[in-house]
């Protein structure tokens, strides 16, 4: 299977006062299409920075990121946004639903950004699929954390992305709700054939993926296939 994401010698530095602070050193790896992978590591290890760079949310200081064979760092902001809209889905720890839109409208947005005229029909179908068919007209503030994350999942999958980045998707949920969300996430992933990159502290969650990349102090300290999962 060809690689949907290729990361080569990726480094990221920030200016901190009068000196440069490097948070990611020469990171390289590839993610095959349809595979699942977890990026784990302690706080400050560079996980979120890596996710931001892989998704084209930030510029690397050095190295390159190829997403669906397109070198992201050569694109401008708008071209990267377009690429994300076509190939990338996101699930965030704090759900990141647009508070002023209803659940249905939140799910419709990615399709509408593509210019789809009847985005409501697939959005309704996706909300039904995540079990929120009866809460379509509710605003995020009227939904529980678990429900908000389901809406986020529907929004992430509605584009049928080739890769989905999930940043601590269960970080703000209780155990029972977490379990249900994780189940749904992996189920949809399998159904759509999307590659899944999971950034988490939660080793139990990481164990559900096929591959685990461990980061420490901005460097990859291990990149192993997870024996417990099918390839």
């Amino acid at each position, binding site marked *: 299977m060809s690689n949907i994401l290729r990361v080569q010698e990726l480094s990221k530095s*920030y*200016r901190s006062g009068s000196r440069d602070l490097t948070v990611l050193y020469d990171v390289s790896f590839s993610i095959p299409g349809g595979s699942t992978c977890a990026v784990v590591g302690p706080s400050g290890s560079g996980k*979120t920075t890596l*996710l*931001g760079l892989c*998704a084209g*949310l*930030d510029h690397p200081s050095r190295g390159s990121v190829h997403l669906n064979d397109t070198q992201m760092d050569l694109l401008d*902001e*708008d071209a990267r*946004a*377009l690429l*994300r*809209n*076509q190939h990338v889905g*996101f699930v*965030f720890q704090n759900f*990141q*639903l*647009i*508070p*002023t*839109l209803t659940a249905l*409208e939140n799910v419709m*947005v*990615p*399709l*509408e*950004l*593509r*210019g*789809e005229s009847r985005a409501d029909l*697939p959005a309704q179908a996706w909300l039904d699929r995540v079990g929120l068919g009866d809460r379509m007209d509710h*605003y995020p503030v009227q939904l529980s954390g678990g429900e908000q994350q389901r809406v986020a999942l529907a*929004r992430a999958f509605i*584009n*049928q992305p080739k890769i989905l980045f999930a*940043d601590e998707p269960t970080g703000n949920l209780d155990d029972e709700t977490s379990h249900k969300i994780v189940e749904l996430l992996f189920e949809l992933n399998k159904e759509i054939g999307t590659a899944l990159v999971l950034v988490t502290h939660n080793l139990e969650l990481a164990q559900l993926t096929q591959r685990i990349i461990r980061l420490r102090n901005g460097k990859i300290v291990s990149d192993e296939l997870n024996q417990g999962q099918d390839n």
Partner: protein
Amino acid sequence: MNSKKSHFTITDPWIWKMAWRDGRHHWQRLFLFLLSIVMGTAALVAIQSMSDNLKRDIDEQAKTLLGADLVISSRQPFSSEVESFIDSLGGKQSREITFASMIYFKKNNGTRLIQVKSVEGAFPYYGALETVPSDAAGSFRQGGRALVDHGLMLQFGAEVGDTITLGSHSFVIEGRLQKVPGESAATQLVSPPVYISMRDLESTNLMKRGSRVVHRVYFKFDEKVDMDVLSEEIKPRLRAYQLGYETVESRKANLGKVFGDLYRYLNLVGFIALLLGCLGVASAVHVFINQKIPTIAVLRCIGARAKDTFAIHLIQVLCIAMLGAFLGAAAGSAIQIFLPGLLKEFIPVEVNPYVSWNAILRGLTISLSMALLFALLPLISIRKVSPLHTLRSTVSENNSRDIWRGVILVLIVAVVSIFSGMQIGRWSYGIGFTAAMAVVFGLIILIAKLMMRLVKTSFPRSWSYVWRQALANLYRPHNQTVMLMLSIGLGTFLIVSLYLTQDTLIKQIAIADSGKQPNLVFFDIQTDQQEEAEQMVRSMGAPVIQKVPIVTMRVAAIKGLTMEEIRKDSNSTVPRWVQEFRCTYRDTLTNTETILSGHWGRPVVGQDSILISVEKGMAENLNVSVGDTIVFDVQGVMMTTIVGSIREVNWRRVQPNFFVVFPTGVLESAPQFWVLVTRVTSAEMSASLQQAMVKRFPNISAVDLALILRTVDAILEKISFVIRFMALFSIGTGFVVLIGAILTSRFQRIQESVLLRTLGAVRKQIARIMGIEYLWLGSFAALSGCVLALLGSWALAFFVFDTPYDPVIMPVAVVFILIVGLTVFLGMFITRDISRKPPLEVLRKET
């Protein structure tokens, strides 16, 4: 699923749909923005509507402004040649002779300088003399009766039927004069009119030689007569006879000019309100964008372009701006209904408010374009919002220079210059106004930055934690110190400037009534009355400060050219009003005069002529210098004079000053009258002296400077009320800006407060920290505004009014305390929840 579209434009329905979806339940976030525009637009539309109304009403009631189709006037009795010319004009004619004199109320011995108007014929032909009882307007013409100004009757407690004396003739008051066509109540306040019949004029014995009399003929022509053609035809002869004239059109033009100046000033006050409102717009949009960063970041994350997110929010701002502008235009149109009531004493026509579409369109154009430009300043930062905000709560901002920011700033300067130029009526003034505002803005920003530096580097470390925390808040990252200083400082500057300017104007006149300056002037004293009049003044314990002879004359020729030739010369710079002069003769300079060129009283070498001294400004008007000749017609006798010296005169000193002074030994035998200047120490002394003088010499008039001062004070009070009413918009908008600026930093304060309370700070400490911060901010901002206003009003006094500057500090101090108090109150009120409620409750509510 296929991708159908990769980008949107602002006309794309989805962008509008998103703008609607996103804004439908949260429009209140832009409430301050809406309020700023409403207030600014309302001020603009109200003033412009009132101005349009007045123009329309002046047009519609034009003929009542003059009461006739044509008025011809002269300071001399009409010669037989002029009478023939007047007869030849035909139409209905009515005569009026007007002059200043003293009225004497028999009932209470009251006296006052008034304007006697003796009429003959059916004047006014258009409009009416409004009297109580109404038939008095006709019956007073039968003789022995007078119409007396309503205000004057109130002042002296006079009633219809009482007796008054004018000169040596007594009259029964026939009616109260409520309104004269074309004259405003304010004109009547300065010089109240008393109408008598022409047939009684002779018996008053007030028409002495040298009296300042105006003879008028009012004409009413057949409707078929084209007044433009007629006035063009008769103009040369009117000039030849040195007659003044006025048509309905020229009266309209003069009125338009007078009110144009007032409206331009009020327009500027309205424009300042809008400018402050635009600061509010920038502040409110800044708050709005800060709140929307997470949403914008999510949209960017899932594929929206920077332009798309910008367009969505631009549409929201545009819609609110339009809503605000329309609401403001409606409010302005409603307010203007009440404005004429405030100005009615100055307006000589009846103003009937109507909806001025011109004012609405103009107000909408100005406010929308300015609001949009000011909103764009914070709005363009949307383009720089990073999608990384979805992953991190703090993201280092992209600090690269944005060329659009510079473009918008240049556009703002250009638009403010153009619109202020439009409002004032002159482009150069618009640029000057913009430059002045830029200087004030710049100075307040500079003061704010200096204050922050001072607080950071200089406040004692030993102060209590509450003080240190409060003061540190002033220069913390993302502080709103500059914005708050700007809004409070600018508002204070405007309020105090308006007050101090008004005070300077009042004081300019009040100086005349202070210290040992003369304050009572008797004039029209005949030569044979002067010695007795002088004795009378001295016998009542008042000094004779000055006694001056005055000879009335006309200019006949300048530098060999007759006045007729000068008038015909289109290149001549001699003003048309240069005709009659009131000159004196003496052999010494007074202490108000300084010789600038030539020599006082010394003949020019080789010439044996009358050497006169001409005042500097008049010499410029007449285009004469030392050695030039001027021929005067001294009541029939031609007198050739040579300019011997040019003088500078301090006109502000209360004493008779003259454009032309003759040497002694020339005019002594010419018909003349005298002016006597004295000083009285009380209102009672002034009244007694005037009464005695009027009783003994009814032809002598008196000018009581204290009365003039009170009258001018009353007029200025009324005008300043209108200005203050308009300034209310600026002040109101200033508070909106202030609230916006406080709200901007609300979230930051919540986070700090929650942290401090978690660490054990009690509510009182949190409240004290915020209180001290607002107290400091309010004090510095209000102080900056007060100091700048003091500097500005000093500049006005020094450069414009040319008067000593002595500002009143107490009212400025009161404004300072009020502004500081209000800032602390608003700051504490808006953030009251933060210190009162439990930390978690606040956090849940705000996040």
